[in-house]
């Protein structure tokens, strides 16, 4: 297994390299640059800025420089937030996004799975229809609707929580963003779990367990649930990568200093280094969580062997 993990981490290096290369040139294809503004900058000042950030050098030179810096852990300065380096921005924002994202993910997995199991056990009965109806509604209502409605009810009308802001990470400020992120995920997980649990309950070895007179608890939790977990496990990987790297909508509506907004803002501002930083961070998260999923797979299912 260790050998497998090592091999996967090794293959991540060329993957990252390809991602970095493609994104580097792709963002340069977009017209404009970090210092093109609507008003138009004094050409002398712009030339100075370009020189200062090395943007006057040929593209391939800039690319090699960027790679070299990246290898030394230097993501470069942000062009639009000149007081910060990209690294500093992530050091501040990433923990915020991870806190919110991880809480939402855990909430989604626990509540979603529980709802899914209940629905599967009551297949085609009231509880099942209720879960499915709610889940369908949950996954169709977008976060930019959930968030303002939450603010309207719980912050403005009932005044139980603040409308927005981070307040140094106060608990009351986190509820809104976490719930908003979690709700659609709960819906997705519940539907996934229901489907795979129904299939697991129909399998032959469950029939065997019943024929042997085993208890319902053992049949459902020990024999059905473990197999039914596999689709949830594979969904959690990409979901974790997406949730933990922040959401622009939730972060904007609740005014949270996470990193989700950088992805869009940086691209719009042609903040090349920040775009690249975001890409690298998301790529690393995706690679790592997919690896974790594959390891979990082997833990849940003894038939999965990587060596």
């Amino acid at each position: 297994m260790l050998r497998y993990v090592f091999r996967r981490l090794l293959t991540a290096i060329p993957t990252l390299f390809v991602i970095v290369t493609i994104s580097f040139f792709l963002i340069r294809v977009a017209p404009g640059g970090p210092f093109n503004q609507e008003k138009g900058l004094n050409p002398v000042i712009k030339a100075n800025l370009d020189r200062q950030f090395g943007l006057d050098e040929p593209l391939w030179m800039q690319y090699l420089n960027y790679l070299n810096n990246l290898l030394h852990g230097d993501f470069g300065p942000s062009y639009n937030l000149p007081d910060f380096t990209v690294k500093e921005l992530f050091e501040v924002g990433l923990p915020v996004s991870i806190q919110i994202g991880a809480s939402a993910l855990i909430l989604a997995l626990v509540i979603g799975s529980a709802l899914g199991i209940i629905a599967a056990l009551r297949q085609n009965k009231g509880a099942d229809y209720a879960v499915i109806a709610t889940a369908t509604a949950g996954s169709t209502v977008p976060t930019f609707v959930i968030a303002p409605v939450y603010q309207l009810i719980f912050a403005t009308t009932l005044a139980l929580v603040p409308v927005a802001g981070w307040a140094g990470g106060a608990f009351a400020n986190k509820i809104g963003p976490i719930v908003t992120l979690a709700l659609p995920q709960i819906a997705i997980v519940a539907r996934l779990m229901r489907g795979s649990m129904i299939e697991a309950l129909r399998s032959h070895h469950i029939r065997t367990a019943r024929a042997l007179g085993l208890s319902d608890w053992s049949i459902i939790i020990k024999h059905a649930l473990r197999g039914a977990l596999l689709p949830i496990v594979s969904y959690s990987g990409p979901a974790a990568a997406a949730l933990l790297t922040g959401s622009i909508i939730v972060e904007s509506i609740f005014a949270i200093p996470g990193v989700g907004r950088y992805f869009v803002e940086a691209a719009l501002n042609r903040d090349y280094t920040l775009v690249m930083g975001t890409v690298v961070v998301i790529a690393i998260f995706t690679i790592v969580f997919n690896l974790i999923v594959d390891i979990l797979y082997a833990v849940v299912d003894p038939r999965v062997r990587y060596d």
Partner: protein
Amino acid sequence: MAGNETILSVENLKIRFRTLDGIVDAVKGINMHVKAGETVAVVGESGSGKSQTMMAAMRLLASNGEAAGTIDYRGANLLNLSKSELNEIRGRKVTMIFQEPMTSLDPLYTIGNQLMEPIMRHRRIGREAARQEAIKMLKLVRIPEPERRMKSYPYEMSGGQRQRVMIAMAIANDPDLLIADEPTTALDVTIQAEILNLMADLRKRLGMSMIFITHDLNIVRRIADRVYVMRLGEVVEEGDTRTIFSQPQHPYTKALLAAEPSGHKEPVPKSAPTVLAGTDMRVTFKIGGGFLAGDPVYLKAVDRVSVTLKRGQTIGIVGESGSGKSTLARALLKLLPSEGAIQFDGRSIEKFDPAQMRPLRKQLQIVFQDPFGSLSPRLTAGQIVTEGLLVHDPSISGKERDRRAALAFSEVGLDPANRNRYPHEFSGGQRQRIAIARAIILKPKVVVLDEPTSALDRQVQKQIVELLRDLQKANNLSYLFISHDLAVVRAMADHIMVMKDGRMVEQGSPEQIFDHPHEDYTKRLMAAAFVDHAEAKV
């Protein structure tokens, strides 16, 4: 051997299923009983309700099914017991094993874990005691190295071993009655014989009763004291085994008995031309390997086998699963990469690429085992049958194609009027006829028949065998007939090859192979398949 005490009695049992097409009566008021120590066989074809009767007794009917009547086990009506009362009997006094040994065990837990669970539950003993008990059970079902096997997962065991483990789980709590639903159908014939012997032996040793659900009359003869014959949800005949076999009363029972494949094929003249020949055929599969993954393992699926198929000849290839019989046939048709020389119609084709092979494909056809999976569900039967013509004879008109489809339909004994229906509207036997029509419409010289009758009931099997014989005669076809069912092979082939582990063990005429086998393996195979019922009856 059988006592007089009735332990299970089924009275006026009715089972119905609510389906999208309305209510289906699967079992229509049947009566049955089992005495202590007795082995009862329930025989019938698929859909006769034999399995559902037993599923009802175990309260394992699908959620859309309901049972009425009584199933009485020692004074308790199993149909009315509360779940906790039921689970005192289920798995302890009355147990069941199933047809699917590959999927009936939980893939995610070790054999030991699964074996210990019902022991601990029903006997209320601790882990260590249950472990010892479980090892004892594995010994009893003759699993080698039981202590090591406790730590194995189901996927690490063969089908036969898994069925042994299933049996061990079922008998671990010393039950009164073991219900076995086609427990050997999915197994190779030598394994089948071993499992049957084991079950008969255990039944005697433990003094339990057994209900054996099967469609295989050979097994009934070998194992049962008494027989119930079921058809369309009713018991049409019952009696002791000897009487049923010697003096069947009901026409259906007679038909069932007559459905054993019979007849034999005349050998082709020595002068018959060779159509397809493979010399020194080898097929090797590479397993594993890749970037940093260590060295791959090579598996010799076919190891230096030579075949010569003459015009009008049927070569039967027999052997157990994994013996390489299908792989050999596919390699000969160049559907798999292989080494060795292949001659078709006097031309060496081993170096042909797919484009060169294409014009030859129409003369080299194949019919697969699975009549459900091998027909596209989105095409009509007529489209399926004529699809090959689109490739090999694109110039013919739609009207002409349809005419040929109708012709092919009547050739294989299907009503041409049904050619616009979809595969799911046909029965298993009819689907296999469609698959055969699809092969012969191209006027092939060689047809590979890969277990074409294995998924079918005996009676249907017999009809397909007869159809294949007639088609061969009419078109002078050559068949490569792959099967693990020796009775069918004996009826079809004029030359037989026995394969084991990728090698050819023995070949010769049917008389030679069936009546005077030389090799030990062939002898074992024959002994397992055709036991004389008088001496095998236990």
